[in-house]
């Protein structure tokens, strides 16, 4: 079943730079999809349009039946509640501990107090950090911080997990652990995962659906297992 659809999407920034040209693509529900490409290929723009940080100049983006490009600013939160987003720089609150960081996502949307605790504990268990509830981000390794960020992203049980180079700051071993974790979430929870990366080793090894971008155009859409390492 189709979950994400881009129809003739073009994005031109105010300074005149065109980041995406007439892009058409489709991602299935429950899919694990890598978006790859060199610098300036438009992968960051693509992902920003997914969580409606940027709006396409032309074309249509549909996520789970919701026309994202038609969404008014005041209603963007309705989309975001269905998404989890993970960044390269973790974006944790330094003065809050692991538990509070994850709980913050639920508090911010006005979740009930008695709902928060079990959900946070479940998410932290899934990412393997249940023993570090009271630790502060500064006392954690990069990989652990990214796990906290992932726990925060999945705590609200999103349909779609968007990851913008989540392994960019991590060594190869930790990177692989994080991708393994995302894969586990994808399988266990049925969450659709879209991950931007330029880590070829990971993409090579995982044999997933790969969307390759080049200079704002769709270079190739490899189905699962089709990807072969090409120089983009």
């Amino acid at each position, binding site marked *: 079943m189709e979950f994400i659809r881009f129809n003739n999407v073009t994005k031109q920034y105010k300074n005149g730079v065109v980041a995406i040209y007439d892009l058409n693509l489709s991602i299935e529900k429950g899919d694990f999809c890598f978006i790859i490409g060199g610098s300036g290929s438009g992968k960051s723009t693509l992902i920003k349009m997914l969580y409606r940080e940027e709006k396409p100049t032309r074309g249509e983006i549909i996520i789970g039946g919701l026309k994202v490009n038609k969404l008014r600013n005041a209603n963007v939160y309705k989309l975001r509640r269905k998404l989890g987003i993970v960044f390269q720089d973790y974006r944790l609150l330094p003065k809050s501990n692991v538990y509070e960081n994850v709980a913050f996502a639920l508090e911010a949307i006005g*979740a009930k107090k008695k709902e928060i605790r079990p959900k946070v504990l479940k998410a932290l268990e899934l990412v393997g950090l249940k023993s570090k509830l009271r630790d502060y981000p500064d006392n954690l390794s990069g990989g652990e911080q990214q796990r906290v960020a992932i726990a925060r992203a999945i705590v609200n049980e999103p349909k779609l997990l968007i990851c913008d180079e989540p392994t960019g700051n991590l060594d190869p071993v930790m990177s692989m652990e994080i991708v393994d974790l995302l894969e586990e979430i994808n399988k266990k929870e049925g969450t659709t995962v879209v991950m931007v990366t330029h880590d070829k080793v990971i993409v090579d090894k995982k044999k997933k659906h790969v969307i390759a971008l080049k200079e704002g155009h769709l270079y190739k859409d490899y189905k699962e297992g089709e990807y072969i390492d090409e120089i983009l």
Partner: protein
Amino acid sequence: MRFFRIVGRSIRDAFKSVGRNFSLSLASISCIIVTLVIVALSIVITYNVDNFTSELKKDLTIVAFVSNEADKADVDKLKTDIQEISNVEKVTFKSKSDIKDEMMKEDEAFENVMKQWDEEENPLQNTYLIKVKDIEKISETATAINNLSAIDTVKYGEGMVDQLVTVFKTAQKVSIVAVIALVLMTMFLIVNTIKLTIFSRKREISIMRLVGASNFAIKIPFVVEGMILGFLGSLVPVGLLIYGYKSLYNYFGGRLFTDIIKLVKPEPFIYYAAGIVVVIGIIVGMIGSGRAVRKYLKV
């Protein structure tokens, strides 16, 4: 329910934030204190002036002395003439013999002299006592009455009343201008305090956006913070108002300089005034923070 949970959390966050940016919060609170002290003062002045002028209105009477040459028909016609003047509320006739009797009762010396006067010899004049609707127009009304042919002179304590009304009206105007200027300055300070809070919580705000907090949930902690600043700033002026006005009232014995100017009784007046001061404090805080949120929080 979600609404109340968000508001509850906002109040908690807002209190934390007031403490976190304590020096700037203190600057805003001090400014609110100064503003609200002046607001309180102007409420006291305005209310007292209103009270004083309405008391005056009840008491103030124009006395029109009728010329002794006027015959009975002239005197009767005068009543209708006076009643036709627009600002006149009530006209009462007091004959010169009534006045003579009153004066004789008041003083023994008068009695001795006056009892020898008969109707013809009585040098006093028939009078009309006139109440006006609007005391600010009393001098125009007095002139109009004075222009009637059978009237000799008109008295209403002109100099003093005019001056008092002018002095109080000026005090009222000055305090209103001062209040507006101070309110604007206070809002400016609150905008800056909230701006700092917004910057210090930038990361939190960006995460809130990402996880799908509504604009309302993002904005409300800052607006609440402004309201808390306004409320805290109103406490000192309220204290000053309640204790200050009570002691002022007791010190002057409920009157200012003369018996004409009676002060408004402290209770329940000061409690209403205190309520107004608190509400103004909170509203100024709310508007100030609302402006900051609109300007610096792009939601």
